[in-house]
């Protein structure tokens, strides 16, 4: 049986895997590095899939994590279109679908996740959105059909809803919870988001229970408990299931993701896990968290590279994510509970609204919502306030005449 040996083997050609590979080189790692990916495409960024790619404004080459020559110049091998069948941790080898065995000194699991699925059998017209291929197929249908139902009112669903409205479709959002973004944001802010979408013509059905897809050869509607939604395309965005099967079979601890310490180490000293598939100890929150974000993929990629290179880092960055909907952008720093208190600065009417979020009198998060990138600076300063453990007086946070940057020096 054919056999190869590499220094660091990365399973998963997404953001986290690619970032880990390049971070290794940036830190002077000189052994061989190989990324194995099931898709035939080089690593690409996923945030544009529900936005610019769907609207045909960006092609694959525009969203690559790094262009192909960079892999050559950094001596990073890409094995694309290859599936790993199993990990043999005792032998420090993995077996591919074609039987090839690859030995490793260090193994990084960057296996990502797959969309959580509805129990109904999928029919033509019903889509899930995770890969570039998914986005291309959905984009083609959004150009051909007229009525889109988005199932799931999370960030991805709302981004798809915005893109589809921009493409001229009728759009409704169907959400099982009483409101959208229930797990992510306080109610007031979610209401602002809904108001923007409604002003653009999106309709919402919350607390909605789906009884099934309707249609013969392809989707014609979605049956709710109390009504039939007319739809010729549907996108289901109801969450992500981490891909942990390889880790489980290899005997690694799994609990809503592959369990790791703050540097991405699993219980096996030679195996690490990063990105959407990893449930990692977070030094800032002092508990394990599985995060599905672009920032987290990058930071964890860098953290495992540091660990492999013998450097000491900790995973203490305050979580940060963004979402672009219409010509508005939305940035969130920190984590918070739904009962948190909100202190606002600016207004949506002025195109720039910042919410500082307090839980039990402590600053726990910052959310900005505004046109273009107008809120980026304030959210970033808010993220730094959180990172530094600052807790400025409410009245200063609310006063637009007080420079946020100066609050960093209090």
């Amino acid at each position, binding site marked *: 049986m054919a056999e190869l040996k590499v220094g660091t083997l990365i399973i998963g050609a997404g953001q986290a895997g690619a970032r880990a590979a390049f971070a290794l080189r940036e830190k002077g790692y000189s052994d061989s590095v190989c990324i194995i990916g099931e898709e035939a495409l080089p690593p690409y960024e996923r945030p544009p899939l529900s936005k610019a790619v769907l609207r045909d404004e960006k092609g694959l080459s525009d969203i690559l994590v790094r262009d192909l020559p960079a892999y050559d110049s950094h001596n990073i091998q890409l094995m694309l279109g290859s599936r790993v069948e199993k990990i043999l941790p005792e032998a420090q080898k993995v077996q591919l679908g074609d039987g090839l065995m690859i030995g490793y000194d260090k193994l990084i699991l960057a296996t990502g996740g797959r969309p959580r699925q509805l129990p109904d059998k999928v029919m033509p017209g019903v889509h899930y959105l995770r890969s570039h291929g998914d986005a291309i197929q959905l984009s083609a249908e959004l150009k051909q059909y007229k009525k889109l139902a988005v199932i799931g009112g999370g960030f991805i669903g709302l981004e798809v809803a915005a893109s589809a409205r921009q493409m001229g479709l009728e759009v409704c959002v169907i959400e099982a919870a009483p409101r959208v973004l229930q797990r992510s944001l306080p109610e007031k802010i979610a209401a602002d988001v809904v108001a923007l979408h409604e002003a653009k013509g999106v309709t919402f059905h919350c607390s909605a229970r789906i009884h099934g897809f309707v249609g013969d050869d392809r989707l014609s509607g979605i049956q709710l408990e109390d009504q039939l939604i007319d739809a010729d395309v549907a996108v289901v965005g109801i969450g992500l299931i981490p891909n942990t099967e390889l880790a489980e079979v290899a005997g690694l601890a799994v609990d809503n993701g592959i369990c790791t310490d703050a540097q991405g180490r699993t219980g096996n000293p030679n195996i690490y896990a990063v990105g959407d598939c990893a449930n990692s100890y977070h030094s800032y929150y002092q508990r394990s968290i599985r995060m599905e974000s672009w920032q987290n993929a990058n930071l964890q990629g860098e953290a495992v590279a540091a660990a492999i290179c013998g450097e000491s880092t900790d995973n203490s960055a305050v979580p940060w994510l963004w979402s672009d909907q219409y010509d508005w952008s939305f940035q969130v720093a920190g984590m918070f509970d739904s009962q948190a208190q909100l202190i606002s600065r600016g207004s949506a009417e002025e195109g720039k609204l910042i919410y500082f979020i307090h839980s039990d009198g402590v600053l726990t998060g910052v959310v900005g919502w505004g046109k273009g990138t*107008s809120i980026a600076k304030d959210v970033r300063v808010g993220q730094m306030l959180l990172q530094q453990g600052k807790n400025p007086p409410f009245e200063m946070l609310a006063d637009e005449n007080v420079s946020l940057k100066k609050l960093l020096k209090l």
Partner: protein
Amino acid sequence: MTNWVLACDTAEIDEEDLIRFDHEDKTYAIYNTDNGFFATAGYCTHEVQHLEDGLVIGNVIECPLHQGRFEISSGKALSAPVCEDLVTFPVKVEGDQVYIQIV
């Protein structure tokens, strides 16, 4: 041929901040830092995003889109996702006016 172009008054840029300057068909970012005024190309090298809403911290500009960081004085890319440096331009201050040198 090089060309000094009036970009702005010194007072137009807050301390430790930047503004956008458009000239002919190009756009620039002009910075006011503790170490003086600087100028770079306006767009982040990662995506087509102007840096004007970015955060200046000392000699570093962070892109407002993905928090990629550049050293202002040299244009050097400091952190992912940016990996390509920013082009920089010479700056001179005469009186209360900032000029940048454009090739």
